[in-house]
């Protein structure tokens, strides 16, 4: 599958020599535009749309130890400028991911971060052990924030001791970069970011989806409960990035509501070292490329040659 875009305006023309490279821990990424877990599959579908090696990184769908079928019933529901999902981590499982997906990602020359979704400390540990030997994986994004499974993951975002012990165990297990994806719906997110820093994590992702619900007024019943994403959450996540950036020194990766270059640039200015494109992929499959181009255009206009010089320029 190849997608050709017709009639869209994508900026070209390089005047300043630009540096878009960023670093998280020891890992270098060619630019700060990543694709968010669960919105980009394992890269296959979009590899037909554009050259995915152009992305800073592809973050995989949340991987569990065993394959998961996901939730029954309605899984997605549109709200004004947003999407509520309750997929329930349908994924191929870590073994099939290694067997069937890594080869393709390698061929595509993609930079890959594995999103790891365990239901217990032991599961997180076992998944990472299996992935350690895969050169293609640059690091792990630990998903302790999925609101769509009955138990597991998100419990770690509500319990500081569980959270701390988990990160301690995982840190010992890997020298690759370790990123923790925080939940915006759990207690005090700033404290959790602090714990992540203390336990040697290389970055925090701010944030997963917001717990949300919709009621069907005719049936007088819950229509859907799940995680809210999309442009509707952008200003709330931007504020979280500003607050967390003030509290911790480790890099913040922003995820929530980006839908154009401007929203991505706002996150960078607020202190995000990298940004993740999520729900917007569904609206425009080429959006990540438009955003990389838009960031370049902004740098040209603002006469900025190094992206790192604008990261965190705006503070609270």
């Amino acid at each position, binding site marked *: 599958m190849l997608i050709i875009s017709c009639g869209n305006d994508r900026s070209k023309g390089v005047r300043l020599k630009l540096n878009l490279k960023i670093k998280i821990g020891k890992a270098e990424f060619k630019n700060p535009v990543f694709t968010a877990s669960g919105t980009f599959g394992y890269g296959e579908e979009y590899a037909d749309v554009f050259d995915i090696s152009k992305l800073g990184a592809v973050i995989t769908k949340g991987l569990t130890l065993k394959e998961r079928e996901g939730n029954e019933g309605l*899984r997605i529901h549109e709200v004004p400028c947003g999407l509520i999902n309750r997929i329930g981590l349908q994924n191929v499982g870590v073994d099939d991911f290694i067997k069937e997906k890594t080869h393709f990602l390698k061929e595509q020359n993609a930079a890959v971060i594995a999103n790891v979704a365990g239901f217990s400390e032991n599961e997180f540990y076992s998944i990472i052990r299996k992935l350690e030997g895969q050169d293609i994986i640059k690091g792990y994004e630990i998903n302790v924030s999925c609101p769509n499974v009955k138990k597991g993951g998100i419990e770690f975002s509500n319990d500081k001791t569980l959270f701390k012990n988990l990160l301690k165990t995982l840190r010992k297990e890997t020298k690759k970069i370790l990123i923790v994806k925080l939940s915006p719906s759990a207690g005090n997110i700033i404290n959790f970011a602090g714990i992540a820093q203390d336990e040697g994590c290389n970055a925090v992702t701010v944030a997963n989806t917001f717990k949300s619900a919709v009621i069907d007024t005719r049936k007088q019943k819950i229509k859907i409960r799940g995680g809210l994403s999309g442009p509707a959450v952008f200003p709330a996540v931007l504020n979280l990035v500003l607050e967390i950036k003030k509290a911790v020194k480790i890099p913040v990766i922003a995820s929530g509501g980006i839908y154009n270059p401007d929203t991505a640039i706002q996150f960078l200015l607020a202190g995000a070292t990298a940004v993740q494109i999520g729900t917007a*992929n569904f609206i425009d499959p080429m959006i990540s490329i438009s955003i990389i181009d838009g960031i370049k255009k902004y740098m040209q206009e603002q006469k900025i040659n190094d992206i790192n010089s604008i990261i965190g320029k705006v503070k609270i």
Partner: protein
Amino acid sequence: MKKILSTSRIIENRKITDDTFLMKFENRNPDKPLPGQFLNIKFKDHLDPFLRRPFAVFDFDRKTLSILYKVVGRTTSMLSQLQKNDLIEYLGFLGEPFDRDRTFNKLWVVAGGIGIGGLHLFIKNMKQNNDLELFIGFNTEEEADAFIRFLKPLHIRINAAVMDPKGKSKYFKGNIVKLLKKETKRCDTLFACGPELMLKSLYSDIIQKKRIPAYFSMDAIMACGIGSCMGCTIKIKEKGLTRFKRVCKEGPVFNADHIVWE
């Protein structure tokens, strides 16, 4: 097959019945769409409605594509307001098509009203080499009249059922499954597209009882339309296992015997 993301100019947006429209717009795909495939459509530069919406390719030629759509909500109502030269964005062609490489002695195609949108291209492809009959269900007599006039260029045998005819009607009174139940002949294979309830009763009352091989084009709320979000899944039995399959990627066409009806 190449998938194209295109901003296309509307050539025509014609009313077929009170709430059904045929929209023609520029075709930018070098390949031909296969019967059963669909487009994921949105308005140019709009964030509201937020998600794209799937519509079957109704027909095509080298320069144009068309969809036949029924106004049921916000997107379809906004689509119906668009005029010649307005722009829409489509992503396509998506999904796996109907099996059109075999010939059948007797082929039945069953549409629940607007379900004809997903079957029209298939009928056009198959009518030459197959003994093909269309069964189609409507709510009102006016709707049936308008559709039958509209489908005349297909030159096929059409059996229509109307749920709610006024007085003495030229159409069969009742739903399409009831009409098919009375049919004494049988077919080799049946292809259908329509509301889930219709497909469900078509399956339990006809397909299962008469053991007719059948393929259904299924509906689902979609987000990405290309297989990456896992939002559009339905339950499919496969090699003794039940799994969630994506309507946008493994579907929309499924073997009716494999579908798990809730």
